[in-house]
């Protein structure tokens, strides 16, 4: 056994995040850690990696009990970790970033050379002299992996590694993982993507509500049986009634939107045109960092346009309007980043409800003289929490106290509660567990079928295929024409995502 945990437990106040976890990883296996959001995966991994100390229980490393006092100690033991959110400095080069994270001191050039050698050896092309800000997300992930491999770890922990990759990039990552396994290293693989887990993992441990609910061999299971173990019961199947085209004014009409880069590391938008009819869901696929965030900000009005007609919402010119005015036209927005963009982390849920609703629901939520009607907002927040099944530890906790999935349910519910005519969502189910994701996707479809226009920007292709009527692809700030989902295949979308044949505005349909 490479690593074992014995009754590993972590208690936060009244919440037992990990409850007597027993599991073990053999040398030379890819071991999946599956579980819904809030199931305790992150807490478990943080204890293994030394960033949290267990309340009780034991970690056994190569058959001797150890205390992992810090991440540095974990690295010394031979554990490496690649985080879901990269910890790289945009303004530094790959080699400089790697040097910063190492515990021993060495010249940047030496480390760059070593990194280059390793990257060739494992098929992870990385240019040590490239500035991180200029790299794609896939490339940044490779830097993280190379940085981790430089420490020669026996166990590598990967947290949701494919959430930011194209299908082709993911395949390459898997080859690297197989190579690492064949060298006798072990990999702890955290993912929500059941297909992937079945494809590459040798063993799986499933967590639910902080407890181990099962061990299995993923290739002997179906996605359905895995999901059932995670959620506890069968995941609701998404139902999608056929979409009847309406000849009325489109919900969203974007014509020839171009925009220079807003900051040093942001993407320019080139001549983006897009129509979303009432009643349909349009998906925008693309690898992270290709202008999704910029497009979202342009549509939400956080970044205004210079011409009123560039963006039209429900038939009204909105290009010159700000966020609140666009919301008053019936539009609602859910950004990708929950904490710090969609919600203020230290503010309570009720305050965060007011965040996006003060302009549209002023008559209900704001009394005379600008006084906040706290009782009304409290009731609305309770209604949303009930409708979306938001699980929380207190009546009105700060946003940061909720798990990612539960906060996302609240943020989507906050907008759905208004019955918006237009909904624009960036990454609706990123890092959200299977049960909650199904609920969110169904809610998006239902909203569209009730006559609203829904635009979903997502890096999860399976999700887009599941909910979209039409799919467009964004690459380097240019948007392909939207193709009906029946004509879209993973290969075709994957090629567009990688930038093949993406002359702005005419790719896709012509292909």
């Amino acid at each position, binding site marked *: 056994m490479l690593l074992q945990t014995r009754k590993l437990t972590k208690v936060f106040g009244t919440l037992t995040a990990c409850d007597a976890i027993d599991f073990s990883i053999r040398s030379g296996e890819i071991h999946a850690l599956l579980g819904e959001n809030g199931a305790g995966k992150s807490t478990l991994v943080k204890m293994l990696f*030394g960033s949290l100390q267990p309340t009780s229980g034991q970690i056994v490393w190569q058959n001797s009990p150890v205390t992992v006092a810090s991440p540095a100690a974990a690295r010394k033991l031979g554990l490496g970790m690649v985080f879901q959110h990269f910890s790289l400095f945009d303004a530094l080069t790959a080699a400089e970033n790697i040097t910063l994270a190492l515990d021993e001191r060495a010249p940047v050039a030496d480390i760059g050379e070593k990194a280059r050698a390793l990257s060739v050896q494992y098929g992870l092309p990385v240019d040590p002299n490239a500035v991180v800000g200029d790299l794609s997300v896939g490339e940044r992930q490779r830097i993280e992996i190379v940085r981790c491999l430089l420490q020669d770890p026996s166990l590598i922990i990967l947290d949701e590694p494919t959430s930011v990759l194209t299908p082709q990039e993911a395949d390459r990552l898997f080859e690297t993982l197989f190579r690492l396994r064949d060298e006798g290293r072990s990999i702890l693989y955290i993912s929500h993507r059941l297909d992937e887990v079945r494809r590459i993992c040798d063993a799986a441990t499933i967590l639910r509500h902080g407890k181990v609910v099962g061990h299995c061999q993923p290739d002997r299971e179906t996605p359905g049986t895995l999901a059932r173990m995670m959620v506890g019961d069968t995941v609701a199947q998404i139902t999608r009634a056929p979409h009847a085209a309406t000849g009325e004014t489109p919900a969203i009409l974007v014509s020839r939107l171009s925009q220079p880069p807003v900051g040093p590391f942001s993407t320019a938008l080139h001549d983006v045109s897009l129509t979303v009819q009432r009643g349909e869901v349009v998906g925008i696929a693309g690898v992270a960092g290709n202008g999704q965030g910029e497009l979202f900000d342009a549509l939400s009005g956080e970044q205004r346009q210079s011409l009123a007609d560039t963006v039209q919402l429900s038939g009204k010119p909105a290009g010159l309007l700000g966020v609140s005015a666009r919301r008053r036209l019936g539009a609602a927005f859910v950004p990708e980043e929950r904490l710090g963009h969609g919600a203020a982390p230290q*503010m309570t849920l009720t305050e965060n409800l007011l965040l996006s609703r003060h302009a549209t629901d002023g008559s209900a939520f704001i009394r005379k003289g600008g006084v906040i009607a706290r009782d009304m907002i409290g009731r609305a927040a309770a209604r949303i929490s009930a409708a979306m099944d938001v699980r929380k530890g207190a009546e009105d906790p700060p946003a940061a106290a909720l798990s990612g999935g539960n906060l996302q349910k609240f943020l989507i519910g906050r907008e759905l509660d208004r019955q918006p005519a237009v909904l624009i969502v960036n990454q609706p189910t990123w890092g959200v567990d299977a049960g909650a994701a199904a609920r969110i996707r169904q809610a998006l479809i239902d909203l569209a079928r009730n006559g609203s226009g829904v635009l979903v920007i997502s890096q999860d292709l399976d999700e887009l295929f599941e909910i979209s009527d039409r799919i467009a692809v964004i690459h380097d700030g240019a948007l392909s024409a939207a193709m009906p989902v029946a004509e879209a295949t993973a290969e075709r979308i994957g090629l567009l995502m990688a930038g093949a044949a993406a002359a702005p505005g005419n790719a896709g349909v012509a292909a």
Partner: protein
Amino acid sequence: MIRIEVTRRPQPSRLLSAFSPLIALGLTIIAGSIMFMALGKNPVAALYSYFVEPLTEVWSLHELAIKAAPLILIAVGLSVCYRANVWNIGAEGQFTFGAIFGSALPVLLPGFQGPLVLPLMLLCGVVGGMAWAFIPAVLKVRFGTNEILTSLMLVYVAGLFLDWLVRGPWRSPEGFNFPETIRFHEDAVLPAIWFASGRAHWGFVFAIVAAVAVWFLLERTLKGFEIRMMGQSPRAARFAGFSSGKVVFFALLLSGGLAGLAGISEVSGAIGQLRPVISPGYGFAAIIVAFLGRLNPLGIIAAGLVLALSYLGGEAAQISLGISDKAARVFQGLLLFFVLASDTLIHYRVRLMRTVKAGGGDA
């Protein structure tokens, strides 16, 4: 091996947020006693003159209110700025400019008298403070300058401008060449709250009213929500449709206005004329008061009184025990240090850990 581990609490501790000021007081008393003993003074007598003596006499209670009023008024305005993440360090200058604007009326038009004079002076004081705060606001919003630097530098401009006025054009002709203006006529003097007992003036009432009003603004209104959101999470505030420029203007003008009101109240209520120096550094001490009160206007009332008490206590200890003013300042510093340090306990848990072997590298 023992190490100290500081971990963030999942939620701030209610118990400790109530008790941390008492813990701070206890630690100050212990550390202060050690210091007084080292100086060869009786610690009990020293602590008595610090914390009790100023509260035993009616006149010194009035002095307490006089000292606390500007501290509270200014700190309340600063709390709005700091909650909005706008770092106004120049309240001292806004205080001075409020005093100058407000004094213009009785100094330049001594013939204009009647019940209208005082309200107009107070209004001019507010406008003066706002005008001085408007400069860093425009510079920040328009050109992206750092308000810490601009507001601070304007303090010295205001101070020198006042100095020039009272030595030059505004100097009293009957003042034997002393650098001061004429004494304000009766209608221009802010009256005492309760004449019979002492000289505490209406500035203290203004301070309490301002604190309650600003508390309501911050905690209960949409404007306050906007300010807090902008300070905590600017990106989310933009997503909410709030404009950062408007918040910067609002926060700086409000705090400038309150500092200006404090300035004219001090001059009109406590001094009675303009002099080269009209403040012992209220504008800077108020920064400490704002943080002692945890940027909560109601907490600031208490913090302002405590800081005013430590000023009076320091004076009392100098007089009755012959402690040097340096020692008095050290003691004041101890108090502030422990208060801020104890507040850490609200958000963090401190534990002594006995580790078998740091690093766990025994594999």
